[in-house]
């Protein structure tokens, strides 16, 4: 089954090509470390998923590029074409001239309706190229105007036009100390609207990825390109084929459906965090070896202690003792430090994955009480190594990972809203104070739901 990617705004159109580059590079790579048949099977499952085969033999990304100003898209198209390994469909992009001015209301209420038909037509064309549609993957930031506002509008349109397809929104959370001054307003409006139409929100925080670039990848002068490449690696590690059922004999063909099924049991809980280990500079790969028990131990502690990367993990945090007489939602230790999960998915790629013991992830104390741990935890595996990493483990988690960042954003936005600063910029384009209040209410609800897990 195929996934149609929609790249929205500058961020979406800068991350998108890195993702396709990583997927393509991995699929064609020779570092698979597995048997020829395995590799062929993997390759077969890769086909169709994100690319379609053109007559020229160069894979064409199943993507629609949308931006309200032309500079980024034209750059993206030419970079892809120059790579020689893959490209975009020349027709599959849409841009305007003026941009959205970092104004969510402009993106949502003006550009959205005005350009709805053209954009939906482009998406429809991509959908028709698919034999079977798994769903949509949208890439956007929530700080600006196009990705956030127009992105929210497009997601709504997708839901209306394709009620039975899955929609996964990849949302980039901006640096805490500002890329855009009104980023918290834009974020609140985006998240509240996406929550209604989307199936799940997969989040990457710029601050976190920046730290990974600095401390793990040892990059001195970090550019957005570096950040985007780490993001692309992490996304690739969950989107590339894997065996989903224990002792399954063929690669799963429904990546989005599988993800949703395992991770989103309840529509109130849609926030997914992503962790991937190990991460290191490419030239160190050849000199490093890891053991699965070590990786799993780190990954589990990252989950429990809500660590953003494999350095600086707080090993003091422990899950609450089972059988404790205090109901778990009132335990202060749990609230402050321990990260409770609803559902977790671990994806293992590379050597000896069949030997790995994941029992520690099935511990009921990791999870909220209203789900059976058998249902709450899933593991996917493949012996085929990913992106030159001999062993790679990813964790996609529906847990309290994003609770604090979300709370921070809502808090700052509320603080600004109380003074009514910048609100006139939004009312100019049709978003009124009531709309803000609705969004705040919706997100406070989400925060509350995640807090009492």
């Amino acid at each position: 089954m195929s996934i149609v990617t929609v790249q929205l705004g500058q961020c979406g159109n800068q991350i998108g090509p890195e993702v396709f580059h990583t997927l393509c590079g991995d699929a064609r790579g020779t570092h698979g470390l597995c048997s020829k048949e395995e590799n062929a099977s993997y390759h077969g499952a890769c086909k169709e998923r994100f690319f379609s085969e053109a007559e020229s033999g160069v894979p064409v990304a199943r993507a629609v590029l949308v931006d309200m100003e032309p500079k980024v898209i034209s750059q993206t198209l030419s970079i892809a074409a120059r790579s020689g390994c893959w490209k975009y469909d020349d027709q599959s992009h849409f841009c305007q001239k003026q941009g959205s001015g970092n104004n969510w209301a402009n993106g949502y209420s003006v550009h959205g309706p005005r350009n709805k038909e053209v954009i939906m037509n482009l998406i429809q064309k991509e959908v028709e190229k698919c034999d079977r549609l798994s769903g949509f993957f949208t890439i956007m930031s929530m700080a600006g105007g196009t990705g956030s506002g127009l992105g929210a509008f497009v997601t709504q349109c997708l839901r209306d036009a394709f009620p039975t397809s899955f929609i996964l929104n990849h949302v980039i959370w901006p640096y805490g100390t500002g890329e855009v001054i009104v980023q918290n307003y834009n974020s609140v409006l985006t998240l509240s609207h996406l929550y209604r139409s989307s199936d799940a929100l997969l989040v990457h925080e710029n601050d976190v990825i920046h730290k990974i670039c600095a401390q793990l990848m040892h990059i001195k002068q970090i550019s957005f390109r570096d950040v985007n490449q780490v993001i692309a690696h992490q996304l690739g590690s969950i989107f590339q084929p894997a065996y989903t059922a224990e002792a399954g004999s063929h690669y799963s063909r429904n990546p989005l459906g599988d993800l949703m099924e395992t991770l989103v049991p309840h529509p109130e809980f849609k926030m997914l965090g992503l962790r991937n280990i190990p991460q290191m500079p490419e030239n160190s790969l050849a000199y490093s070896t890891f053991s699965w028990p070590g990786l799993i131990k780190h990954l589990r502690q990252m989950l429990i202690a809500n660590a953003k990367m494999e350095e600086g993990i707080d090993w003091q945090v422990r899950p609450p003792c089972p059988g404790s007489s205090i109901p778990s939602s009132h335990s202060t230790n749990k609230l402050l430090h321990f990260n409770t999960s609803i559902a977790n998915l671990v994806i293992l790629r590379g050597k000896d994955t069949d030997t790995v013991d994941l029992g520690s992830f099935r511990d009921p104390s990791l999870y909220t009480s209203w789900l059976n741990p058998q249902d709450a935890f899933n593991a996917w595996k493949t012996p085929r190594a990913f992106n030159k990493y001999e062993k790679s483990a990813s964790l996609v988690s529906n847990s309290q990972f994003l609770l604090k960042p979300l709370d921070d954003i809502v808090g700052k936005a509320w603080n600004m809203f109380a003074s009514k600063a910048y609100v006139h910029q939004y009312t100019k384009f049709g978003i009124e104070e009531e709309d803000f209040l609705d969004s705040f209410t919706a997100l406070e609800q989400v925060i509350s739901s995640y807090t009492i897990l």
Partner: protein
Amino acid sequence: MTQSVVVQVGQCGNQVGCRFWDLALREHAAVNKKGIYDEALSSFFRNVDTRSAGDGPDIYKGKICSLKARALLIDMEEGVVNEILQGPLRDVFDSKQLITDVSGSGNNWAVGHKLYGCQYRENIVDKLRKTAEHCDCLQCFFIIHSMGGGTGSGLGTFVLNLLEDEFPEVYRFVTSVYPSGEDDVITSPYNSVLAMKELNEHADCVLPIENESLFDIVNKIHQMINSGKLGSTVKQSLVTSSVGTTKTAQEKPFDAMNNIVANLLLNLTSSARFEGSLNMDLNEISMNLVPFPRLHYLVSSLTPLYTLADVNVPTRRLDQMFSDAFSRDHQLIQADPKHSLYLACALLVRGNVQVSDLRRNIERLKPSLHFVSWNQEGWKTGLCSVPPVGHSHSLLALANNTCVKPTFMELKDRFMRLYKKKAHLHHYLQVDGMEQGCFSEAISSLSDLIEEYNELDATKGGPRTDPSRLKIAV
């Protein structure tokens, strides 16, 4: 890609404008090696086929034929505009883009605004419409003028009004040169305050500039270059030099100062014209830096003032560039943003600078700056890959900061000193359409603005009580 139109009014406006076009051509020439008319060029220039007589059709693609500035040159005296038209830039301006008269406005806002405004209204609207028609997607008008005289101040603000009426959707950025205390025009306080009212009500963003600051900056650069301390490795100043432009003659005294303002405008629009990893368009500037409609005065600073010939910029020098942007003597008005309250701050970096450099410096400088309680992390950032001509990097900082208040308060004081004595008032009142009410309204508008800044300043350093969050029934 969008287009912008520059409207230069009065002597100061036209002199600064002239430098702007010169430096803009230089910048595009440096970037555009193949001579193809591209989108970046089209933001400020039309490409015209001059072979056909009269107004040839615009050429949108292909080789550059003849570039025409998207500009309107307005002056009620002929001297300055004539000089431009006889100078090396004469081909850049279309004769149909000029509006001149003979006798000037006599340093009288009322003459500029009421008399000439009325007289030339239709002509101005007509020419503006024509310029707008040549634009595919007009985003912004830049007005350049001074506040202290008669034409730039009076007619300039009249045009501002017109722009709001005729083109309400298009942004209006005004670069205003404010008179200094020792200004030799006695009535400059009247002219400035009358003009301020118009700026308060009709501009989207105002970039105030003070000659004193420009002068200090020029002096500092001269000292550095002439001190010999830096030896022959010092290149021409980033912000004041006219090297590589059409100016071959000895630079006139105001040229260096005007170059600074011209560079301000170039840097402001660089991210809209050229590519980068984090674009910052003009509508984003207005969106992020104007939290309340009337508080739209932005203090600007350009750094570095000069760069050494090194291509590899050590981190320390890069960080110094950021520190300087916040120092008092790099601001283009006499103000000290560090010791006042920030409502918002934008940093537009050009050249070989990455997001980690930006983040490192924001983290480093943030503790020493005071931000208003509801915008503690109020930073807007932009990264443009194309550096300014002959240099590897530069930074433009725009701050919405209460440090503009002293400038306005002094203006008000100087105004009141004249107004109390009714000095020179009759020159204004004898102009048709001008009455005492105009004066009282203007000073009242200025007082209100100062009061708004006062209220914000009062919150500085006070206890932070965050408003309580919405409660949700569980």
